[in-house]
């Protein structure tokens, strides 16, 4: 596909790197010479220096033949203008990053008027991710499939966990829960496990189940622990605002610590919430706010280092669930190595979101990818397909008889309202939604057939 990216910042370059790898023709426009030359020196793309909202520049970049324009420049206004202009000039699809919540209604207006395809609000996406994670205490990452009917959660096996040192077959017998372990990350290597696979301490595993079953699973895993109620949140930035909005009434049990007094007042005026004005890096204050007894600790301030440090402290104090927001993409791996495992990042959410959109677009031509997530550090891809027609060797064939490529798995079948965690005798019917996992790249459901 022909893709134009406006903005060569961290998000622009992260999107660029992946799109080039997937073989798209990418043109990047930015007015900052330094970051632009860096991007065009590193990736196989064309760099054009200038303002992305400049009509003549856009047509020089070949916007009329572009399949997609991604606007991730620093300024919302530029992104909006770019998308509007690109659409008028003939680009097929546009994606704009809009961070200022005040512009969202405006964008909706423009969406219907100028037929814009999609906007992404990074902080809102992050807040949504946090809400998903909070549902399952212990999970480090949660993705949803089939319109929210199926959940896929990642977590790390600890020594005292009831599932440690069990084979998957034993696990299924022991726990009366319908779920499937569909991926294991041990060290650097990702496995799609068979029934005899034994889980070990330190494995990151990825499981699929319906929401109720997954709640049951995590309850079993965490002993008596219930859904997180008492939250401590540091920082009252945009993400915290959206989080408060999404959590609705249950935010009443949260304590927010924010250094800026004006922000504190603003937040408490808007939501029924307990706000403390103070320095979140003060141990004294954290103890006073009850870090020892809270259910979850969310470090969402604007300063990455601060988030990392207070998260480490929270971990030491034994907080069962800790979510850390890291803005800088380059920090993420450092902090992961330092033991902070549940990291949310507005930037990587944006990147994931846009890549998913591109994949969906590219694949829509020959098959129907409904959703796509990468799990276990991006080592395994999970895709949801809709089965529209008869496929020899796949539909109406018992799962155990389907000849799959190695390192692939049919993780779940959704038929109407039913969620089937497939065993060997289940069959795939036309109209089903199927979730497939593989360590390689899959673009079509037929790709998993050997």
């Amino acid at each position, binding site marked *: 596909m022909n893709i134009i990216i406006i903005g060569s910042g961290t998000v622009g370059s992260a999107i660029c790197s992946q799109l080039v790898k997937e*073989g798209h*023709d990418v*043109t990047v426009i930015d007015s900052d010479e330094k970051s632009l030359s860096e991007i065009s*020196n*590193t*990736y196989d793309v*064309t760099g054009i220096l200038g303002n992305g909202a400049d009509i003549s520049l856009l047509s020089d970049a070949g916007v009329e033949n572009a399949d997609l324009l991604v606007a991730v420049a620093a300024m919302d206004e530029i992104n909006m203008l770019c998308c509007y202009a690109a659409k008028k000039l003939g680009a097929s699809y546009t994606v704009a990053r809009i961070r200022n919540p005040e512009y969202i209604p405006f964008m909706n207006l423009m969406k219907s008027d100028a037929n814009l395809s999609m906007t992404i609000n990074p902080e809102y996406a992050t807040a949504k991710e946090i809400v998903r994670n909070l549902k399952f205490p212990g999970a480090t990452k949660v993705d949803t499939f089939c319109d929210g009917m199926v959940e896929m959660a990642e977590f790390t096996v600890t020594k005292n966990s009831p599932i440690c040192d069990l084979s998957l077959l034993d696990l299924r017998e022991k726990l009366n829960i319908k779920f499937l372990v569909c991926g294991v990350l041990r060290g650097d290597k990702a496995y799609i496990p068979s029934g005899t696979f034994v889980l070990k301490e330190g494995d990151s595993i990825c499981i699929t189940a319906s929401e109720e079953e997954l709640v049951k699973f995590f309850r079993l895993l965490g002993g008596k622990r219930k859904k997180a109620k008492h939250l401590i949140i540091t920082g009252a930035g945009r993400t915290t605002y959206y989080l408060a909005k999404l959590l609705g009434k249950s935010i009443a049990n949260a304590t927010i610590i924010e250094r800026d007094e004006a922000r504190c007042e603003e937040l408490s005026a808007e939501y029924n919430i307990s706000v403390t004005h103070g320095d979140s890096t003060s141990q004294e204050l954290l103890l006073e706010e009850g870090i020892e007894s809270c259910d979850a600790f969310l470090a969402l301030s604007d300063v990455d280092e601060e988030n990392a440090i207070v998260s480490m402290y929270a971990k030491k104090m034994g907080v069962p669930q800790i979510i850390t927001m890291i803005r800088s993409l380059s920090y993420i791996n450092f902090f992961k190595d330092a033991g902070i495992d549940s990291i949310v990042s507005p930037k990587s959410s944006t990147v994931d979101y846009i890549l998913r959109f591109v994949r969906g677009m590219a694949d829509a031509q020959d098959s129907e990818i409904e959703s796509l997530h990468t799990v276990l550090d991006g080592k395994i891809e999970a895709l949801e397909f809709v089965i529209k027609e008869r496929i020899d060797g796949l539909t109406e064939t018992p799962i155990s008889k389907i000849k799959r490529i190695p390192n692939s798995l049919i993780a779940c079948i959704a038929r109407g309202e039913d969620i089937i965690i497939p065993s060997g005798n289940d069959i795939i019917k036309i109209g089903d939604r199927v979730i497939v996992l593989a360590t390689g790249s899959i673009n079509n459901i037929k790709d998993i057939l050997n």
Partner: protein
Amino acid sequence: MNYKMLGRFLGLVLLIEAGLLIFPMLVALIYNESATPFLITIGILAVVSLPTRFIKPKNKRFYAKDGFICVALSWILLSAFGALPFVLSGAITNYIDAFFETVSGFTTTGASIIPAGGIEALPKGVLFWRSFTHWIGGMGILVFMLAIIPNAEGNVIFLMRAEVPGPQKGKLVPKLKDSSLILYVIYLALTLLQVAALLCTGMPIYDCLINAFGTMGTGGFSVLNDSIAGYNNPAAEIIIAIFLIIAGTNYNIFFYILIKKFRAISKNEELKLYLSIVFISTLLISVNIFNSAALLYDSFGHALRDALFQAASIMSTAGFTTASFDTWPYFSQTVIIILMLIGASAGSTAGGLKVSRLLILFKSMKREARKIFKPNSVKALKLDGDTLSEDTVRSTLSYFVFYIMAMIIPFIILSLDGKDFITTSTSVIACFNNIGPAFGEAFSSYCGFSDPATLLLSFVMLFGRLEIMPMLVLFSPSTWKKN
């Protein structure tokens, strides 16, 4: 340094060379000559390069430095192995001379070591290979490699940067592979067009191919002792002159024609200046040689024909000759030396400083002069209507310094060989700018130089073709220091 990636790339380059050697081998077979020299070379190349296909680099990171070194080593190795057929066939007995001849071919210099009058006696297959190296080296073998390998592994953009000449290196389309492919398709189409045009003048097909390789690669090797003059065919001379001018044009122009972006052509300053220089120098030379005291020409038409051919041939850095310009009046010789130094357009197959660099240098000179009497003036430099980045201006200025140094140093060393001043200085200029014939003793052959001198000149040609940096990186000690 990523040695595994480097090994893999170099292996691939040599494998491609082995493939390309099949063409001269076929020619040798057609003319009932011995194909063994080529067969042996192909065998050696296969033995050397095939094992590298089994190198599986884990780390595919490839930085600018690795790219430069890869390009520099590829060119040296290509020439080192490409010289074998000359030695094996007995056409050139001394290996260093054969290396010089091959470097001269790949770098599209066209400077020959074969003694004057000795070319026509050589086997046709060897002569075909000699000119075919022009065609391969013209657009660049790594560009060719990038065009044919399926999705380039790792970060190979630096390979193209290091090989395609010019101050600004843009891709035609976002993907490197597609860009390289487009370049080669244009190159091939123009070459075939020239072959067809030359066939119409009654030239034999073998000579048509050789001359088209020499023209489009802006090389200048010929199969006749007297170069193009030996044909005594005015129509062929005009056709070659036109295609020389075409070969010295930035290939982006042809791409714009293909995609009908005529606006971009009309505002291209380099093209305008390039054509102006060719035509103005043609006029100056023709008037000068026609009015010379030695009564060289009896009709102005003939003088104009020779002047046009020589101007086009020297400016495009091919170095074909239809007249002994070393006997022309001094003014014409000066014009020719200046043309040698300027060279043709960036993004073409030619050598030299490049017209676009000249434009940038002039513009920044003008700006600096203006700053002397108006110290606070600010002026952005524009090329083709777009503002030039200060980075480009700075790197062009520093390239100019490197350019001067890269000729002065070999000039000093070469003068130890004891040749006269004119021969020594113009040999370095003609080799560095990839022209071929120089003035004085080196007009038709470089056979008078000693072995160390020919080796030095071989590297001067490589420095010139790769625009200094790749070779400089290769030879700088800090590159090889272990950190």
